[in-house]
């Protein structure tokens, strides 16, 4: 029975609207009118009368009430009935000719949900009673309240016991009382127009509070259904580990990237904000890393379709600060307001349907849909102010201290006049000598006397330039979003658009993002429904010009040419430099032999990035019958990103290519060109005119199709069965194109004036000035899932999937991989011995065992050949070559892992305390790692499935309703996750550089990325750092490529072992306060490499420098190495460069990564509805929030360095402290 009394419901709606207004009490008087019993008495009635009374009638499509009225008018019989119970029985057509009332009623009511009985003298019409069995067992009362998801109670909701006519409607306050069988479970069908119908299994509860959400689709309720993206499966049939997070709970004010919202919200999901720049992905891991060299990112799924990455950025590259990181976040184009919820699938059972891509977990996003009913408009505006960093947060020397260091450098024969005039970089000393050299209007810029020089320097000693103030701004970021939704029984729609504008936290960046989302669902018939949606986003972003960083394998550091990252610049540039001259013009220092002013450079050297992301999706559902359905999903996505790095004619980069002031500079300037064919000629510039235009285009074209057949049925009321069969096909084509343009004259109509020597230089060095690379992913899978549950008490769920991919190359042997898993659940609360335990509201246990997999980084199931050109000094010696890049690996297979998960869910005291906990063990095997061969096959190091890894973890989330009063509530939500991994099989050892760099390296017995340190052996008697070598000897000579690494000190994993968050939400009337902290423990961090064998007068130094070695004997009291004198520096050749880098990579320069961060503090206020009603607004709220406010705890050794941020320059910026004001309106 599924009555849909349109008329009466319309009445409900009318009643409901004022309730939304929040003036509920006024309506209490109406309650007694709502459910009225009508009694009609006739005292002389008996059974005989009834059997004798005859009626004649001819009714067509009438209600029971009409029938009763007709009988009453023809007889003297009286009826007793509950108006509410009979009101839904309509469409009665009956023809009778002098028929007894008994016969008539028997005949008519047989087809309805009603029955009758003769009670004393009255015919009582009532709902058909429950099946005999339950009648025998007796009944009990189930009470509860039904609300919508904004916590407004819903009157008139129909609650019917499935398979019976036993049902009630809620009263004005949304309360209901229903009689149900005392034992055994029953399913309740809860329906209300405009709300999503629900089926809820009731076992032993006495109270059932139901939240209905506005949607037209069936079975999409938080407490009932798990949405894996492939299926929406009844919780009862689901036994995996999955966490659902509502968008509202996930939202962190002022965070525009949904990827960052997971931080601390879900146990087992760790988010590390290695860069806070818009578009840069945080390092997200679900249950830690599952691969050593392969992908460790979770799979993002939006509305059932995997969101492919535009470019593949490895976890280590995420922190590089390269431009590619700006398009590393695949979810950067999503408007957070469009998201309804996240479902984080963690264990093998939950992710099983993703088969061989699911090893790293899945984050499934469901976007909002249209709701049947009146059209709604939602407007959200968010204003975020990011505050400038300041020197108080970092330990940088002020200009006075810095100048005293420079003076010491001067005493140590650095910063001399002749040397500075010819040095690559120069700051205040360079400017001083430059002034001495300049002769204008009959006088020198500065007299070359000790006194004049001292006065000059003294002036800059007091400069104390605040780079943070100059390069950063308290910028405003605005995010406005409008959505319209609505619909009828047959069609609904959701349309939204948003606009984000970020002025830029620094003066060099800026972001605009526009999104659109259109979604319509159409019910073409009872069986067929079709959905279409389009999501699009367009982003325009400006970033400081940057090149990719390169690694210096010899001295062990990274370098980036022409790095002008504002954050790095502020941290690393001496505060004695002044950006403006006294007359207000730019003051230039020297970089790369050319004039440089950071403020000017930002105008002349920048990156324009555009990203267009368009996705079109079609869904089709066909319901063959009640049990069997077919679903098709088709999606096409196209992403195009273009980054153009413009270096104008006056940029430092362009000027560096021209800097040839004198012969010394000519020889030293590496940007000049010497033709190898003419070895005796002077170096010349290859950029006579103009600047550079470096462009990079990335394209992704993705197609996805899925066919699924689902069968679900319940046998004998207790055997719940769901079977799913499906197939999917995916193709993704990626194209990356790079082009470097030389000699473009931006100020002359972009005329290109290329020096032929530039092309000659490029081809001689073996570098192309343009290029393209393509990749093609092809993917096919077949899958089957079967779930069975006995009365929701015992559940078994199993999935088998076969994946096929072209990634491993064109060998047919290894391309297919089957994965499987089995999971089970025991709902203990339903056992007899627990049903009566009052305080226990819920208890169930889950267990999963299964195989998941992932594609490793190797693709050589057949030999891989790569073309390239050889490097030779003369053009006629350069050849095309074809390298066997990888030998065939006939044993190549997917990376795999067996996962065991055991978990329980516990609810106490009417679910005021709910706990969910999981323990897991993962045995990763066939992981791809490098293995050292004999070399006889011709490939010394091979990537092969020769590594194993074990990881263990524990996850815990606790939700408590500490105080629940009518006006005040306090909820606490705590998540905790522990993850530890250990590599149990690995061949080959990385070298010293690999092990000691900030990104860490994989080692046997260590974690996936472990950090090692060079053991520091103290300073020597000249203040130079020394270290222990492999034999325990003290040395200054560190060879970073050395593979003898046993003496290195293991510091720990760079990935935190413990992550989580805690939020406390206080609600008082319309006010709500949320305090949210995230924490992370158990990792180590390599400190900024701030020590160098020689410095320039541009460098800023850390406060540590004050404690540096100054005189003999200091080595006993300090570990901060000395500033090397020129004489000592030259004594070692350039050898001290690597010695000082070794100090940066020593155990002296490591800190703990532990932190507790006050992530968000927010106060929101819902405006009184009474007031809003008058102006026609449904809901309005205002929220003020502070995000990333401060660290409650972090290692002091960090000295202000953000424990999450790597600080590698380029486009990377740390997450900023920000304050957000957001306004929400529902019309």
């Amino acid at each position, binding site marked *: 029975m599924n009555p849909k009394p349109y008329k009466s419901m319309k009445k409900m709606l009318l009643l409901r609207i004022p309730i939304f207004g929040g003036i509920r009490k006024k309506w209490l008087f109406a309650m007694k009118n709502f459910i009225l019993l009508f009694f009609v008495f006739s005292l002389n009635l008996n059974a005989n009368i009834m059997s004798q009374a005859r009626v004649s009638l001819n009714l067509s499509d009438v209600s029971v009430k009409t029938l009763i009225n007709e009988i009453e008018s023809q007889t003297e019989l009286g009826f007793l009935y509950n108006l509410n119970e009979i009101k839904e029985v309509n469409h009665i057509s009956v023809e009778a000719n002098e028929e007894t009332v008994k016969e008539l009623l028997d005949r008519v009511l047989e087809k309805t949900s009603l029955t009758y009985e003769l009670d004393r003298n009255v015919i009582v019409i009532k709902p058909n009673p429950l099946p005999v069995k339950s009648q025998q067992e007796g009944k009990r009362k189930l009470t509860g309240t039904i609300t919508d998801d904004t916590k407004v109670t819903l009157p008139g909701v129909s609650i019917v016991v499935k398979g019976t006519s036993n049902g009630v409607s809620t009263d004005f306050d949304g309360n209901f009382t229903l009689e149900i069988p005392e034992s055994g479970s029953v399913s309740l069908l809860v329906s209300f127009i405009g709300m999503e119908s629900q089926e809820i299994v009731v076992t032993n509860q006495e109270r059932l509070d139901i939240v209905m959400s506005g949607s037209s689709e069936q079975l999409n309720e938080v407490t009932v259904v798990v949405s894996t993206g492939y299926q929406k499966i009844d919780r009862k049939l689901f036994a995996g580990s999955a966490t659902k997070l509502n968008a509202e709970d996930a939202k962190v004010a002022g965070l525009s990237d949904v990827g960052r919202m997971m931080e601390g919200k879900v146990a087992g999901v760790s988010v590390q904000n290695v860069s806070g720049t818009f578009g840069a992905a945080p390092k997200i891991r679900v249950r830690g890393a599952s691969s050593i060299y392969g992908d460790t990112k979770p799979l993002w799924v939006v509305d059932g379709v995997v969101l492919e990455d535009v470019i593949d950025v490895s976890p280590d590259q995420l922190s590089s600060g390269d431009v590619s990181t700006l398009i590393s976040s695949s979810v950067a184009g999503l408007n957070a307001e469009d998201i309804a919820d996240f479902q984080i699938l963690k264990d093998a059972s939950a992710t099983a349907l993703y088969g061989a891509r699911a090893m790293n977990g899945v984050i499934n996003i469901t976007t909002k849909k249209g709701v049947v009913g009146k059209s709604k408009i939602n407007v959200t505006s968010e204003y975020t102010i990011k505050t400038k960093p300041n020197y108080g947060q970092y330990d940088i020397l002020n200009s006075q201290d810095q100048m005293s260091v420079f003076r010491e450098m001067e005493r140590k024969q650095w910063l001399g006049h002749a040397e500075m005039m010819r040095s690559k970089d120069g700051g205040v000393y360079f400017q001083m000598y430059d002034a001495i050299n300049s002769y204008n209007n009959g006088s020198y810029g500065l007299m070359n006397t000790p006194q004049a020089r001292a006065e000059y320097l003294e002036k800059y000693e007091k400069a104390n330039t605040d780079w943070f103030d100059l390069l950063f701004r308290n910028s405003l970021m605005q995010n406005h979003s409008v959505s319209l939704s609505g619909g009828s029984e047959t069609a609904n729609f959701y349309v939204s658009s948003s606009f984000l504008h970020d002025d830029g936290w620094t003066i060099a960046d800026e972001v605009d993002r526009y999104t659109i989302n259109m979604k319509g669902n159409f019910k073409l018939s009872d069986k067929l429904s079709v959905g279409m949606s389009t999501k699009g986003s367009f982003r325009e972003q400006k970033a400081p010009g940057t*090149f990719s960083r*390169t690694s*210096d*394998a*010899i001295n062990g550091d990274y*370098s980036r*040419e022409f790095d002008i990252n504002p954050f790095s610049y502020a941290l690393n540039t001496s505060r004695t430099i002044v950006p403006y001259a006294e007359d207000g013009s730019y003051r230039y220092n020297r970089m790369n032999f050319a004039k440089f002013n950071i403020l000017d450079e930002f105008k002349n050297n920048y990156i324009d990035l555009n990203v267009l992301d368009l996705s079109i999706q079609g869904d089709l559902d066909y319901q063959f019958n009640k049990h*069997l359905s077919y679903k098709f999903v088709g999606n096409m996505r196209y992403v195009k990103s273009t980054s153009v790095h413009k270096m104008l004619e006056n940029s430092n980069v362009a000027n560096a290519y021209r800097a040839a002031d004198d012969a010394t500079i000519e020889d030293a300037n*590496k*940007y000049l060109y010497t033709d*190898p064919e003419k070895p*005796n000629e002077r170096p010349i510039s290859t950029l006579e005119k103009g600047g550079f235009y470096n462009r990079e285009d990335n394209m992704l074209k993705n197609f996805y199709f899925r066919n699924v*057949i689902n069968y679900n049925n319940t046998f004998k009321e207790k055997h719940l069965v769901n079977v799913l*069969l499906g*197939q999917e096909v995916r193709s993704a084509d990626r194209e990356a194109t790079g082009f470097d343009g030389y000699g473009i004259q931006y100020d002359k109509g972009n005329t290109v004036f290329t020096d032929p020597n530039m092309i000659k*230089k490029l081809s001689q*060095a073996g*570098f192309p000035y343009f290029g393209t690379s393509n*990749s*093609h992913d*092809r993917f*096919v899978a*077949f899958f089957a899932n079967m779930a069975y549950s006995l009365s929701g008490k015992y559940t078994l769920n199993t999935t088998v999937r076969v994946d*096929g991919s*072209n990634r491993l*190359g064109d060998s047919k042997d290894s391309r297919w991989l089957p994965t499987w898993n089995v999971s089970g659940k025991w709902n203990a609360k339903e056992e007899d011995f627990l049903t009566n335990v009052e305080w226990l509201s819920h208890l169930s246990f889950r267990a999963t065992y299964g195989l998941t997999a992932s594609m490793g980084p190797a*693709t050589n199931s057949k030999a*891989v*050949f*790569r*073309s390239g050109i*050889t*490097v*030779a*000094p*003369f053009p*006629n*010696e350069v*050849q*095309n*070559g*074809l*390298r*066997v890049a990888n*030998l*065939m*690996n*006939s*044993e190549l297979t997917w990376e795999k892992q067996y996962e065991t998960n055991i978990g329980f869910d516990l609810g106490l005291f009417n679910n005021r305390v709910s706990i969910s906990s999981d323990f897991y063990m993962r045995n990763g095997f066939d992981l791809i790692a490098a293995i*050292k*061969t*004999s*070399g*006889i*096959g*011709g*490939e*010394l190091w091979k990537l092969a*499935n020769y590594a194993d890894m074990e990881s263990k973890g524990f996850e815990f989330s606790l939700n408590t309703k500490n105080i629940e009063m009518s006006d005040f509530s306090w909820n606490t939500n705590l998540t905790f996750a522990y993850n530890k991994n250990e590599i149990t099989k690995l061949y080959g050892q990385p070298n010293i550089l690999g092990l000691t760099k900030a990104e860490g390296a994989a080692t046997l017995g260590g974690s996936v990325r472990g950090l090692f340190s060079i053991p520091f052996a103290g300073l020597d008697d000249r203040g130079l750092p020394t270290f222990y070598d492999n034999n325990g000897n003290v040395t200054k000579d560190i060879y970073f*490529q050395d593979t003898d690494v046993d003496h290195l000190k293991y510091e720990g994993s760079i990935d935190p072992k413990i992550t989580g968050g805690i939020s406390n939400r206080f609600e008082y009337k319309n006010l709500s306060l949320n305090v949210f902290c995230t924490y992370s423990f158990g990792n180590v961090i390599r400190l900024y490499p701030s020590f160098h064998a020689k410095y320039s007068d541009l460098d800023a130094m850390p406060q540590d420098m004050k404690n540096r070695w100054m005189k003999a004997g200091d080595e006993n009291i300090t570990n901060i190495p000395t500033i090397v004198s020129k004489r000592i520096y030259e004594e070692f050749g350039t050898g001290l460069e690597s010695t000082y880098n070794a100090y940066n990579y020593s155990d002296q320069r490591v800190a703990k990564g532990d932190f507790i961060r006050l992530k968000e503090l927010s106060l929101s206020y819902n405006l009184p509805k009474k007031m809003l009603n008058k102006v026609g607004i449904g809901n309005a709220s205002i929220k003020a929030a502070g995000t990333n406010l401060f660290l409650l705890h972090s290692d002091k050794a960090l000295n202000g360095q953000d424990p999450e941020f790597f600080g590698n320059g380029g486009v990377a910026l740390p997450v900023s402290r920000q304050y957000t004001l957001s306004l929400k309106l529902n019309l």
Partner: protein
Amino acid sequence: MRNYINILIGTCLLAFTSCNSFLDEMPDDRTVIDSPEKIGELLTHAYPNQNHQMFCYAMSDNATDKGKSGRKNEINSDAYNWLDFRLTSQDTPDSYWTGCYSAIKQANHALDAIEKSKINGEITEEAKPFYGEALIARAYCHFMLVNLWAPTYNPTTAKTDLGIPYVTQPETNVLTTYKRGTVAQVYENLEKDIIEGLKYIDDKAYTNKVLHWNQKAAHTFAARFYSLKGEFDKVLEHINRVLSSNPAESLRDLTGNYSSMDINEAIIQWGRTSEKANLLVTPQYSSWFVYFHGSYQYAMSIESHKFIFRKSFVDAEWIWDLYGGDPDIFFVKWGYHTEKTGLNSDIGYYMIMNVLVDMEEALFLRMEANTMLKNYEATCTDMDFYLSKRLKGYNSVTHKVDFTKMEKEYKESNYKYGLNPFYTLDDTQRVYMNCLYDLRRKEYYYTGMRWFDHKRFNTQVRHYFADGSESLLSDKDPRKQLQIPQNAQSQGIEANPR
């Protein structure tokens, strides 16, 4: 219901059959070898890209201890002390081992592709030159390996002496087990490859033939191979296809055009493919070039230069003048270029254009063969050609070679050269051979060729130290065989005795 299942099964079957071809799409820009041209491009890398000269030089008696002032280098010092090398980086035996086998891998893949491209069991015309090149390339690398890691060929012991794995197939498993075999087996394989390969070498197949095994280079290599086997008539047979009637014309003109070049020009000219003396040149990763020649601790000292380049037996000064200042002295050989990690990067790899085969070698092999075949007159004529390009102020009359002058300088009683090949030398031959042994020492000074001469003639090597001590590597010292790389040993390759 049954209908639905049938439809489902039907769809699945259809899907399975069609998706294998769907999955045949190449995942990235990898190249498919589908033309003879691409087979040829595989052979671009069939030449060792690592260098053996630096360690061979320091192991030979060309190097001496300059004292503490020289640049410290572990490879240089391990080589000089005949220790097992600690490093495995560029310029070490381990890297050369890998470099050779990597080149062999390229050759084997080319041969595999040729095999697959056969039409009616015949190699196509276009592929023939590459077939020849691949075989010679494979032979050359194995030849170098067997000479460095196995005892010198000696017909009486070759059947028991451990060789090196001779690889003829592309590797398909992650870890493949290889056997060293015997020196005799290696030489059989070498001869087979050389004979077969020479049939197909065709200079017309290349735009720049000096970068590939061309006719002259291949025949010179064949001659080198037969000189080790002591088959001198075959040496002559091959060499006569290389040298013209006036071989001086094709030698490196140190007394001519080089003398007018400054050092920067000369070092570039040295490794150029357009240099007429260069028969085969290949780019290699190495820090062994002119600026480093002089700087290492175990290299050339003023004294050793004085001794090695003392006035020639025909009473004229050698052309090789010293550059640099004590202790960093050197003379002109080859220069370098770089493979950069970025266009303007300061970081990159030093590369050299290494001359693997040159005209001088052909000439020396002919002199050696003629000596062994007792055509002494021919030997002297060739030596005149040679000296005309190596002596300052050469005068074809006063500086003419004759046995008397030679014997005066090179008789065994003057200085114990101790040449001890498996074939016998009579007294006359010994004088000639001692002379050639010495001339080759000068000609190939930094190239490491001296070490191969120590090996094939079973001579002892004496090293002197700055503190006055000295050490001796006896003629049959097991350390004359490099130690098998650790990683190969751990994959079951038998180590050399120590």
